[in-house]
Structure formats: C-alpha cells, structure tokens
C-alpha cells in the first residue's frame, strides 16, 4: 500500500530531521512518496532519505509558505493513489492534514506515537495521561506522527524526483511575513540535550544563565508556558502539551514546577535533571537526578564546572 508524506520545509529548505522521522513512521505502512512544497533543491535533498520510493516537488510559490488552503487541495488532487496520507506533527502538518481529511470526508488521526497495523494506531490523550488505541474505518487514513517517538530514517537513498503542478493559489489567504528566531543552537525537537527554564528564572535577562548552560552543553533552550507567557522566552521554545514534544538524551529543567501540561512534552526524555528550590515540586517525581537548590547559584556553578 502506498503512503504519501508531506515533507516539512521551512524558508525553502527541507527540514530533514522531522521529514526523516515521518518517513520512518510511514515505512511501517508501505512505500513512501514524499511531497516537497519548495524548490527543486529541497526535493533533491529529500530524495536522499533512505526508503523513499519517489519524490514529488511542487515548486509553485502558492505552496511555499505552508498556506493550508493551497497545500490541502494539492494533496487531495494526489490522494487517489494512496491509502495513507501522513506528515510529521509539526505546526505545518497540524495545520494542513485536518483540512485534507475533511475534504476527503475522513477523520484525521493526530499525534500518533505507534503503528499497530495499517488501520490501528496509538495516540496520547489527556496531556499524555492516557494512551488510546484507535482503529480507523475510513478508506484513506490521514495521520500526523509525533516525531519524538520515531527514529529518523537514514540517508543514502536515491529516489526519482518528479514535479507536480496542482491548481496553484486559491486566493483565500496570503503570506505576509515570517518572524523566525535565528539561532546557532540546535533545534529543540532534534536536540540531544535541552536546558529549559521556567517561571523560577524570573526575567528575560536572567534567562541568559539558562542559555549559557545550554551553550556549554551544545544544547537547545526550552521553556515552560509560564516562562513564555511572562516574556522570558519566545513561543517556539515552549515545551509541553500545547507546545513542542521532545525526548532528548538529557533534559535539564531549571525553576520548572512540573505541571502535567509541561510533563506531557518532556517525560519521554531519557534522563531528566531537575533543579528547583522547592523539594516538594512535582518535577522531582519524574527526575532521575534532582537537585534542591537555588538555580541562580546552581546553574552558573554547573556551567563553570562542566
């Protein structure tokens, strides 16, 4: 059975990690065709992902900025050949796939963490406090995969690349601008190590001590919702039920209490370290190594001694 996977692109380049993780999830269902909305170069790069059967490249500018109306119609025009239509559960995937599903009159299955068989999937509900196994009765399955639970497919592929046209711009919406945070740090969802700060960090200025530790470790920087709401950190750093879901080798939570909504986004990390001055903080219930300390002492000390 054939699988159509929407590749993740950003600013005209392929987001390799998210795409390769969705490919490895899709490979459990059948031969994966990747749809790349972006320039030919992004398509060529996608063709190198191992296990990809074919790459379709849509170069029309109508598809360049993730506008859901245009991309959903393009996918629907291709849908006839595929039993499964999938994407990584990124903000783009989550924007586009439910629209595709409704146009096909099928349900979308969001944030899947395990493939049981071609119709049956596991997904977390209630902020990860329960895992549902759902069996779809729809002819076409439309699925977004949670990237943190799948390993990226390797490189070394050499799939054929074809271009697809589609109907272009529907004229319902228009791109105005992107405000992308430029950073030399690794991306949150693919980083091996993450240092996160919460309300306990206290201010945007003092977030620098979190960043200094991250830089020492070559880590990405994360944040709790409280830290983002208070303006200490940008929205794209929010980890949790309604932010990004991560599972690095090492997650260091500083001044984060451990609300269920935060835990939902990081409790599958391999090793969790918590630094919190309140020994009763719930974060210690999931931490492998807990340090009861003032973060303004402990974090700089850790940075300097590493």
């Amino acid at each position: 059975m054939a699988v159509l996977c929407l590749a993740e692109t950003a600013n005209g380049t392929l987001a390799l990690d998210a795409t390769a993780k969705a490919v490895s999830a899709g490979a459990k269902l059948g031969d994966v065709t990747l749809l790349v909305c972006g320039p030919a170069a992004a398509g060529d790069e996608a063709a190198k992902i191992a296990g990809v059967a074919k790459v379709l490249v849509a170069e029309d500018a109508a598809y360049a900025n993730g506008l859901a109306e245009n991309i959903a119609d393009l996918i629907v025009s291709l849908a006839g050949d595929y039993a499964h239509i999938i994407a990584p559960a990124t903000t783009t995937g989550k924007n586009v796939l439910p629209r595709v599903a409704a146009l096909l009159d099928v349900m979308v299955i969001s944030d899947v963490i395990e493939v049981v068989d071609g119709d049956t999937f596991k997904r977390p509900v209630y902020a990860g406090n329960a895992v549902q196994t759902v069996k779809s009765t729809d002819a076409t399955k439309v699925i977004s995969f949670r990237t943190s639970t799948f390993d990226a497919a390797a490189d070394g592929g050499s799939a054929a690349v074809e271009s697809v046209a589609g109907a272009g711009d529907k004229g319902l919406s228009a791109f105005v601008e992107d405000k992308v945070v430029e950073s030399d740090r690794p991306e949150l969802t693919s980083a091996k190590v993450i240092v996160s700060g919460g309300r306990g960090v206290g201010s945007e200025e003092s977030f620098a001590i979190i960043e200094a530790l991250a830089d020492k470790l070559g880590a990405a920087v994360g944040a709790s919702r409280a830290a983002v709401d208070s303006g200490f950190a940008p929205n794209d750093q929010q980890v949790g039920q309604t932010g990004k879901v991560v599972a690095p080798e090492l997650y260091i939570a500083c001044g984060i209490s451990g609300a269920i909504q935060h835990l939902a986004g990081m409790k599958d990390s391999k090793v969790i370290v918590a630094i919190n001055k309140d020994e009763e903080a719930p974060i210690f219930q999931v931490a492998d190594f807990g340090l009861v300390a003032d973060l303004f002492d402990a974090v700089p000390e850790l940075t300097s001694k590493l």
Partner: protein
Amino acid sequence: MKVLVPVKRVIDYNVKVKVKADGTGVDLANVKMSMNPFDEISVEEAIRLKEAGVASEVVVVSIGEKKSTDTIRNALAMGADRGILVTEDQGVDIEPLAVAKILAKVVEEEAPELVILGKQAIDNDMNATGQMLAALLGWGQATFASEVKIEEGKAVVTREVDGGLQTISVNLPAIVTTDLRLNEPRYASLPNIMKAKKKPLDEKTAADYGVDTTPRLNVVTTEEPAGREAGIKVGSVDELIAKLKEGGLV
C-alpha cells in the same frame, strides 16, 4: 460582523485523569469539568472585537451533553450575547469531523463572518475541528493565532509556528483558531453571571441538522502510559556532574 465561537466542555486542566482498570476509558465520574481553556481565549477575543466596535454580535455554540449548558452560560457571563446548545447523547464525545459538520450547518443558519475556535481541546488534543470546518465551508483558515486584526474584508493573523511567528492574511469569512498568547481571558463577575441566566439559549439536536455522527475511529483500548519512577536527589552540583559523567551524558 457576527462572530461564532464554538466552546467545548472538557475535564478541568487541573484534574489528574485516571485510566479505568478495564481499559475502556478514563474515569469521568465526579470530575470537575470546565470550558476548554483555549475556548475561553476565543470567547475573550470575540468579546474584545465587540467592545472595539468591530463585531456586532457574539454567538456561542456547544455540542455535547445537556450539561454543556453550563459551558455556554459561562461564555454568556463573560459577555457573549446568545447561545446554541446542540445535544448529542451517544454517551461518547463526537469526533471533530462530525462536530465540524454540525458547525457547518450552524454557520449556514447564522452566517457569521468569523468563527473563532480553540486550537485544541485539552481532553483529546486532536487539534482538528477548526481546520475541518474551514475545509467544509471552503473558507480560509488562520490557525494558532497570537494576534488578530480585522481590516477591510480580511483578518490579518499572527500565528505561533514551530520556527517562531508567521503573519498571514485571510479573506473573510474565515476560521481562526486560538493559541495561548492571544489574550488573557476575563473572569465573569457575579452580576454578569446573574445576567447571563436571562440571555437567550436555543436548544437543538444533532438530528435536527441531519448530520451522521457515527464515529470513524473506534477506540479499542485506553491504557495508562509507561510510568516513570522518581530517581535520586543529589546533594551538590559536583555530585550531579559526577552522575552525569557516569552516564556518559556530559
């Protein structure tokens, strides 16, 4: 401009849910229920549009059990003008596709120029209903909004996306789904709670709209996720570094 706001009654975000031992679901008996937090943000945004003279009327709609009346009254107490309750007593929540189909019928009747939904309901976390409704209506969609400006015939919306923020404009009528930073919802005051009891509330059933709500996804089992044991407390930064080195982590 009329604004329609769908609101869902969900388990309160402070409740730690328990999975039933027989795998049939989660225990919802005697659990505190509230309006989905994202929907409070949607109601707030709609009311602010009305206060700014942009919106003329704010209509809230909820699909669910009779008890969803509480959720609608709550939105009316915040400042919405009128409510519609669509009862669906199958005993289970209905899926986003069926919810979207019912909402599409409500939109046909009410003819709003803007529908503001939450980006996700915190019980099932599907993050789907708004996008599905947009598809069924053939409208544009602006999901995960952190800022909404209404300009001539358009909504200019800043969206919270993985890479940061994206601004798009969508032609009206349009669908907007709300993210956390859009606003801070107000609390309903006691006088407004009293007033809300007198605001109009229509009752309908899913059958009135002729929508087939048969689920497409059957829930086979609901299980507890793999647990995580608390580890150890370390006494100092030096001890922490030693542990991390032992594990080859630094």
